[in-house]
C-alpha cells in the first residue's frame, strides 16, 4: 500500500475525555465516532478503557492487528460497539467476557494470551477493574448507539510514484527509450547513455535477457528508479511514495537532465512548442509567455494565470542571457519541481 501525503483531521479529537476528568453527567451527545452516545456513557467507556489498559494495550495498541487501545474512538468502534465482542445490555453474548474467562470460542481461547486469564488476575486483585464491573458496564451500554461511517475529513494528496514520473516526463517532454539507451531493432534496450540519467523498472520489458552482458547498463537505471520509490517486483519490493531526501536528490537531478535532453532534441516540440531558439523575450515576448502558459496547463493541469506565468518567466529571463536552451531547461525543470506537478 502506498504511503500517502495525508493530512486528515481526526474527527473525534475534539471529543476526547481526558483520563481523570470529571464525567459529564448530562445526556448531551458526546460526539465522535459513536453517534447518539451520551457524554456520561463515553466517559464511562473511557474509564473502562483506562482500567483495561495495563493488561491489554501492549498487544492491542496502535499498529497491532486489533488496535482496540489506539484511541477511545478505536476502543468504541472496534470493541464496545462491535457485536462480535460486546453486545450492549447482554454481557453473556459477544466474545469479550468468555475470552477474559479463558473460554474463547475461536483460535484464541483466553486473554491475556498466555498465563493467567484476566478473570484469574482480577480475582487475585491484579487488575484495575473486576469482572463484575465489566459485566455492569456492558449491561449499561446503550444499544441504540450507531457508528459514524463518514470517515476522516481533510485534504488528500498523493505523490506521483516512480512509474508516473517516468511516464509523465516521457509524455510531456517528448522523450522515448532511444534517448537513453541504444535500442535494438526489436526495441530491447542495450547500452545506456549514462549521462542521460536513464531510469527503468527492474522488471520492465523488454530487457536484455542477460543484463550482465551489457556492462553496468541497467543497474544505474534500476537504482534511479528504486531511489524514487519504484518497486522491484521480482524481488518483492513494493512501491514507496514518501518524499524522502533520496527521492528529492534523484528527482531534481533527473528532472533537470531530462529537460535539457528534451530541449536539445531535434524536432521536439514538447517543450518549445511552436517556438525556436531564435525566439527570445526581446524578439517574441508574447510567444515566450504563451508557451509558458501552455507548458503550465500541460504539466500542472491548471490554466495559468498571470501570477504563475510571471513567476516562471522570471526563471526563464534569469537564464536567457546564457542561452535560450538553458532558459527553457530551467523553466521546464522549475515546473517539474513544483509540488503541484509532483502530487495529485
Amino acid at each position, binding site marked *: 500500500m*502506498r*504511503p500517502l501525503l*495525508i*493530512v*486528515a483531521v481526526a474527527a473525534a479529537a475534539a471529543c476526547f475525555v481526558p483520563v481523570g476528568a470529571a464525567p459529564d453527567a448530562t445526556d448531551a451527545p458526546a460526539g465522535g*465516532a459513536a453517534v447518539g452516545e451520551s457524554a456520561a456513557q463515553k466517559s464511562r467507556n473511557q474509564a473502562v478503557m483506562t482500567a483495561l489498559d495495563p493488561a491489554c494495550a*501492549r*498487544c492491542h495498541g*496502535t499498529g*497491532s492487528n486489533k488496535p482496540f487501545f*489506539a484511541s477511545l*474512538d478505536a476502543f468504541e468502534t*472496534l470493541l464496545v460497539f462491535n457485536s*462480535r465482542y460486546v453486545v450492549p445490555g447482554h454481557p453473556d453474548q459477544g*466474545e469479550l467476557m468468555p475470552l477474559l474467562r479463558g473460554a474463547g*470460542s475461536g*483460535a*484464541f481461547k483466553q486473554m*491475556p*494470551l*498466555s*498465563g493467567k486469564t484476566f478473570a484469574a488476575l482480577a480475582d487475585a486483585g491484579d487488575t484495575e477493574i473486576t469482572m463484575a464491573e465489566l459485566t455492569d458496564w456492558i449491561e449499561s451500554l446503550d444499544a441504540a448507539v450507531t*457508528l*459514524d*461511517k*463518514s*470517515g476522516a*475529513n481533510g*485534504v*488528500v494528496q*498523493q505523490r506521483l510514484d516512480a*512509474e508516473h514520473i517516468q*511516464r509523465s516526463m516521457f*509524455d*510531456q517532454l517528448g522523450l522515448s527509450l532511444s534517448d537513453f539507451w541504444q535500442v535494438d531493432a*526489436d526495441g530491447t534496450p542495450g547500452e545506456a547513455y549514462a549521462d542521460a540519467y536513464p531510469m527503468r523498472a527492474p522488471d520492465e*520489458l*523488454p530487457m536484455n*535477457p*542477460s*543484463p550482465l552482458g551489457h556492462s553496468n547498463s541497467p543497474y544505474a537505471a534500476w537504482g534511479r528508479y528504486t531511489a524514487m520509490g519504484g518497486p522491484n*517486483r*521480482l524481488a*518483492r519490493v513494493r512501491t514507496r511514495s*514518501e*518524499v524522502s531526501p533520496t527521492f*528529492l536528490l534523484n528527482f*531534481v537531478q533527473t528532472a533537470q537532465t531530462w529537460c535539457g535532453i528534451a530541449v536539445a532534441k531535434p524536432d521536439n516540440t514538447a517543450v518549445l512548442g511552436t517556438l525556436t531558439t531564435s525566439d527570445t523575450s526581446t524578439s517574441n515576448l508574447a510567444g515566450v509567455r504563451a508557451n509558458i502558459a501552455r507548458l503550465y*496547463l*500541460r*504539466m500542472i*493541469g*491548471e*490554466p495559468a494565470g498571470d*501570477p504563475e506565468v510571471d513567476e516562471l518567466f522570471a526563471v526563464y529571463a534569469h537564464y536567457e542571457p546564457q542561452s535560450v536552451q538553458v532558459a527553457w531547461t530551467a523553466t521546464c525543470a522549475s515546473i517539474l*519541481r513544483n509540488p*503541484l506537478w*509532483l*502530487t*495529485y
Partner: protein
Amino acid sequence: MRHVALTLLFATGCFAGDHESGSSEAPAAPGTTPAGSADGGVTARYEGHRLSPTRRLRRITLRLRGRQPTAEEYAAVTAAASDEARERVLGEAVESALASVEFYEQMVAFGHEYLNIGDYASGQEKWIADAAAHLSRCAAGSKHPGAYIAIGAFSRAGGDPASFCDDKESDGSDYVPPVTAIEPWWAPGTTVQVLGRAGSGVRAHDGVDCGQTGGGIYDTWLGDRDDDNALCSCGPNLVYCHPYDPGESTGPGYHGSVFTPGAQARQLFEEPARLFAHIAWNDRPFSDLVVGNYSVMPLELRSVYVRQARADSTNAALDDSSWWRPSAWSGPVDPQHAAGDRLAWQEVVLETVHPNYLALSAGLAPSGSLERTYRFDPRTETGNARGVGAAGVLTTFVSTMSFARERVRAARYLETFACRQFLPPPADEKFNAYHRDPATEGVCQHCHTSIDPAAVFFKRLTSNFATPSLAGVGSFEWDHFPDYDGNKKRWGLAFVGETVLTPATTAQIEANAEVRFLDGLLDGQTLFGKKSDGTIGPLGFGKLLVESGELDQCAVQKLHARFGGRALDPASEQPLIDELARQFVKDGRTVRGFVRALFADREKMERGF
C-alpha cells in the same frame, strides 16, 4: 502524518502560490504557521481546498490510466460551457479510462503490488520449471536443416543424437535416422520434422512411463535415458519435450529468462498479477482471486502445469487432451492479445492442465462458487486425496514456490488478504513453556495462534526438486519419498500429532502415515472466528477468507488506498470500512463497481489542491 513531506516541498521554494479554485478562503502564504497546531498548520491552511476540474481530470487519469492527461483531454474540460457539461466530461473520462487497455495494465501493476509474489524462476530453477526433455534443431547446412533432435534425453548405444543431423552415428558410422513429421504442441497447425526415437510416439515400455522426466538442472531426461534399449519418445505431439536453444532470445526456444517476453519464467512470475487483472477487467467477483477454479495462461505456461501434473503417472490421460489446441480454448483473454494467440492470457480452468487441482464444478466450467468443496480426512478415509480444489492465486505455481513452507505461506496470505501484521510481543510478556506446538506454547503462539490454523490448508503444497507438487496426492504419498528426501525429513519434524497444525493422535499417524497431510480445519477448529465446512487445501482457506468477511474488509482498504488516494485507518474508521465492505459485496465485489462508487463522490474526489 506526512505533513513533513509538504513542508519539505515548500522548502524547495518551488511552490507557486494559490492554485485552488472554488474555495472561499485564501490560504496563508507558505511559511506561515498558525500557532499551536500539531501538524504545522497544514490542515488548517488547506482544508477547504478543492481541485479544479482540470486537476480532477489529472487525478482521474493518473489513478485509472497511470498517466497524465493529454493536451486534448484537458481541452475537452476547459471547453465545457457549464458545470453540468464539465461533470459529464469528467464522468466520461472515468468510463473511458475504465474501458481502456491502460486500465488493464494498471491492474496488472496493482496485482503485483497487492499480491507481492515475486519471481522464483530466475535462478537455476528456470531450467527445470518446464520439466521437459529438450529438443534442439539441426543446423542450416546439415542434412536435415531445422529438424528437431532430442539432446541429453536419448542415447542410442550411448551416442549423441546431434550427429543424426548429418546421417551419422556419434562414432562417425553411417546411420539414417527415422524422420517423422509431427504437429508440435508449441506450434499448433504446423508440422515439424523430428529425427530418431524422439518422434516415434512411444509413451511407455517395460514399466517405464516416458512422460515422466528426471535428471539434473541442465539435462532433463525421459525415463529410460541410460538404458541401451531405450525406447521412449517425446510423446504424442511432442508433449514430453520442449524446444530449447540457448542462442535464441525470444520465442519458444528460450524458455528460461524472466527478462524475455513470452518466456516461461516470465509467465510464471506474471501469472498471479495477470489473474488479478483478469478478474478486475472482466468484472469477476474479487473473491475469485482466492476461490476461483481458473487462472489465466499463455500456451507456454499451460505446458508447465501439464508437465508438473505428468510427474504423476496417474495423470497420463493429459497426453491425449487438447490443452495445447487453440480450438479447445474458451473464455476471455486479455485486451492486449486476440483469442487463440499463443501469448494471450487466456482463461483456463486449472483442472484441464493439472488434474489434481480440482475444478469442482459441473462440466469443468469456470467457477468461484463458495459451494465448491472437496473433503478428505485421512484419519478415517483410506487411499489418497484426489487433489485439492483450485483456488485462484493460492494454487498458482509461483505463489507456492515463492513462499517456502506452509506457515510462511499462511503468514504472507494473512498479510495480503486479511491485512494482518505480525509484530513481536512485548519483551517482558510471559508465555508458557514450549514443548511441541508453536500455536499454543511458548512465545511463538503470539503469532502462530493465528498463523497455524491458516497453515493447515497449505500442508500438501510442496516442492519436489524445485517444482511444485501435492503431497499425499496420486503417487506422491509418504512412502513415495525416500528417507533422505528433504521434504520427508521436514514433514517428520513439522507435522507432528496433537498440534494445531496436525490435529491427529500419534497413534493415528503411526497407523497411516498419510494422516500427517491432514489439511482441513476439523473438529471445531476455527479461523477468523469461523468454523470450516471441511474443505481441504487452499480452497478451504479461501472460503473462510470470504465467508468471514476478512477478504472484503482488507480489499476495500487496499482499493481505497489505490483509487481513493489514502489508506483507511481501522482504528478510527472501522465503521466506514464496514460500510464500504457491505457495499462492495452488494455490488458483486467488482473492482470497477468500487471505483465507480468512489469516483461518483464528487466532494471526496475534489479534496486536494
